[in-house]
């Protein structure tokens, strides 16, 4: 009997979820059957996390119906979902680091001795026995934080499964596992499948999906783009479903604000403005080499979690590295210091504007001047007049729409906030600007303006590293594209190779070994 002939254990029927300003889920229907491993894929903002949170009782849907074991279900809290038998393993290990391994595993279900008091010996024994089945061999009395992340994840998994789960949802479970641990995990998933538990497996690692998953559902922009068996689905097709790019569809140029065809020759001869060599960090980056020449726009392509943001962060010293070096104009940069990077002329416009960029309680003027203050100061004292001059120049140049420089930056539109951030970094006169999703979440008009601005800046000799999930933006904006997969550069495209099809094909290429 086919698994899908069995009645679905967990089913979403036309689920919608709206957040202020965003329709995160738009009529998504999806069924999980007992004994199947179901892949859930989609790019950033596709609605995966929201869907998982609806399944696990964190969010309540605004529309549609959730059915669990044949009956309509409404989980008020994560606890309610868990008690009903839906367990989740989050990407970030959600355990208590300072408590012992055994107590984490058995919290709430500790073996009791006389007088209802916890029997510590029995607890340690049981924990050791359970964890042995997950390949975790450790002193269970030690604090959880002493374990490696992989082993911690195994404890989380063991905990999730041992609470009588019927559905186990795994959110990027392998992102911090060693190959050996991945094998153990796949063994556990196999056991779950045999015992009739439904597993929802969220990952961007295609190799893994094809190894362990039976079926796949693709979310895009809050809608279900595809659902079906994985076995017959071609990799390239899967990627095009995720990215929303039909194969063979060729767009006419000029949709974006990029309006330039610089000849590759103009930049080929000059020395790179910034050069990163062998950037390595365990589980994140694996020997990434990137160089950006003056006036060159280099794109970073790849799926979510491939290491694009991490590469940018590593270059500006915002992420500790296990190995690798960043050279600015041939001089090595002191690692781990964003100050050193900024001083050398390398700045990052971060992906998360709200959390890592703007300071909402400050004015436009203050937000722009912030990073440039050291260069505007004389003897530690900053002249108001000089700030005003700089702020005025950039507000005009970037066409920032604000009532006055003293308006709070939080009152501006997303596009104008992004321009304020651009102004902040341009004010320090960088040689290279790293832009992480510079046009995400801003309206179409502002998007074209920002894109045109990137063009303009590059023509003036600024080196740009452009990270974008928008393939069109990447293809039209970049002179050269490096494609990342699982923290490593798997392809470089330049000249006529810079096409959406080539990027997708490079991502899809099977990794050998």
């Amino acid at each position, binding site marked *: 009997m086919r698994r899908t002939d069995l009645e679905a254990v967990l089913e979403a029927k036309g689920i919608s979820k709206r957040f202020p300003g965003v329709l995160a889920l738009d009529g998504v229907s999806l069924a999980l059957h007992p004994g199947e491993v179901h892949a859930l894929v989609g790019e950033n903002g596709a609605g995966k996390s929201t869907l998982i949170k609806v399944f696990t009782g964190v969010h309540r849907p605004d529309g549609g119906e959730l059915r669990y074991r044949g009956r309509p279900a409404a989980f008020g809290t994560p606890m309610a979902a*868990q008690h009903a038998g839906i367990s989740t393993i989050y990407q970030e290990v959600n355990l208590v680091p*300072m408590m012992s391994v055994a107590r984490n595993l058995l*919290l*709430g279900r500790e073996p009791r001795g006389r007088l209802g008091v916890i029997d510590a010996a029995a607890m340690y024994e049981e924990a050791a026995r359970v964890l042995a089945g997950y390949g975790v061999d450790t002193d269970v009395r030690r604090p959880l934080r002493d374990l490696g992340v992989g082993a911690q994840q195994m404890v989380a998994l063991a905990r999730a499964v041992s609470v009588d789960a019927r559905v186990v949802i795994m959110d990027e479970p392998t992102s911090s596992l060693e190959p050996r641990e991945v094998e153990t995990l796949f063994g556990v998933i196999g056991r779950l499948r045999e015992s009739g538990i439904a597993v929802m497996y969220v990952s961007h690692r295609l190799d893994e999906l094809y190894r362990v998953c039976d079926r796949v559902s693709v979310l895009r922009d809050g809608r279900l783009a595809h659902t079906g068996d994985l076995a017959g689905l071609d990799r390239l097709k899967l990627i095009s479903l995720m990215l929303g790019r039909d194969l063979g569809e060729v767009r006419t140029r000029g949709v974006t604000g990029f309006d330039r065809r610089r000849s590759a020759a103009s930049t080929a001869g000059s020395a790179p403005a910034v050069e990163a060599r062998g950037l390595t960090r365990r589980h994140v980056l694996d020997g990434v080499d990137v160089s950006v020449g003056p006036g060159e726009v280099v794109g970073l392509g790849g799926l979510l979690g491939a290491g694009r943001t991490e590469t940018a962060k590593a270059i500006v010293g915002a992420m500790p590295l296990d190995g690798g070096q960043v050279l600015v104009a041939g001089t090595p940069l002191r690692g781990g210091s964003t100050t050193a990077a900024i001083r050398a002329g390398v700045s990052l416009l971060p992906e998360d504007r709200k959390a890592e960029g703007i300071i909402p309680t400050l004015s436009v003027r203050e937000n722009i001047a912030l990073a440039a203050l050291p260069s505007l100061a004389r003897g530690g004292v900053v002249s108001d007049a000089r700030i005003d001059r700089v702020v005025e120049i950039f507000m005009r140049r970037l066409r920032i729409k604000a009532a006055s420089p003293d308006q709070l930056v939080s009152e501006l539109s997303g596009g104008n906030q992004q321009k304020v951030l651009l102004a902040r970094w341009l004010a320090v006169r960088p040689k290279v600007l790293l832009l992480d999703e510079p046009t995400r979440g801003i309206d179409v008009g502002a998007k074209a303006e920002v894109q045109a601005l990137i063009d303009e800046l590059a023509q003036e000799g600024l080196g740009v590293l452009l990270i974008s999930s928008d393939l069109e933006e990447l293809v039209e904006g970049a002179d050269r594209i490096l494609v990342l997969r699982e923290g490593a550069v798997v392809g470089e495209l330049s000249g006529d190779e810079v096409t959406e099809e080539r990027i997708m094909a490079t991502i899809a290429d099977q990794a050998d070994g």
Partner: protein
Amino acid sequence: MTSREQVSRVLQQHGALMVLALLVVVGSVAFDSFATAGNAASVVVSSSFLAIIAIGMTFVIISGGIDLSVGSLFVLGGVLAAYGSRYGPVVALLLPLAVCAVVGLLQGLVIARTGMAPFIVTLAGLLGVRGLMLALSDEGATTYLVEDPAFAALGQGGVLGLTYPVYVTIALALGAMVLLQRTGFGQNVYAIGGNEQAAALMGVPVARTKVRVYVMSALLAGLAGALNAARLSSGVTILGIGLELDVIAAVVIGGTLLTGGAGGITGTVAGVLLLGVIQSLINQVGNLTSAFQQVVSGAFLALVVVAQRLLSKAQRLS
């Protein structure tokens, strides 16, 4: 586990106890009158009230919170006990406990249900309770005397050279240890302080646990106040103002992390005794006023916090 890691862990958990032992040894060698039964008893007796409150505070701090209202509750508890003693020993004991439990319940509910910062909520509690106490005592003009001899005996009587409050403290400390280490409630307290979000996802009843923690802290503060009133035979309205800070200091010196998630009762008891021994040693020196005790305690607290920071860093690195 590396040896360095082990050392830092032992230091973190038992540092206060080790320093305490060291001070006792030094004190015994330096001052003839220090290592006497009388002096030891006086340190233990005077520490017992602080210890009772600190036991409750340990639960609060491990859960990631703070309770600033305990000093005021201690005073209020004393006033209520003295006031209630005219109706007999049972009322003298239960009246302060009931009132303090209600205050703790209110604070706990506000903290757990609204997610407001414990610092602010219990600061409001501190002020409100202090006002209540002043209203009861006509702004401190009226001092209620303990009129019931049986109740007074609870604070003043004793066996084997130690007063009853000391035995109450020992019993409470032992009970608290079991509660913290060997019951689901204790585990939940650690889990919430260690990672509240994870605890909620693991099915810990976060709100209920928090409410209980604040009720417990308030109850113990009230009990300490009542016992203190019995000891002094009156509901003194000025002692105990600012006591919450001494309590927090003792708990932190005892190795409980202010950030929550780690700590224990043994450390807290050691921390309380340590403060008492420092006081006693300064008294021995003679020409130093007791104000110096606060200078030394303050310096010591700063030292402990810095050491904790370094130790936890060492543990993370290894």
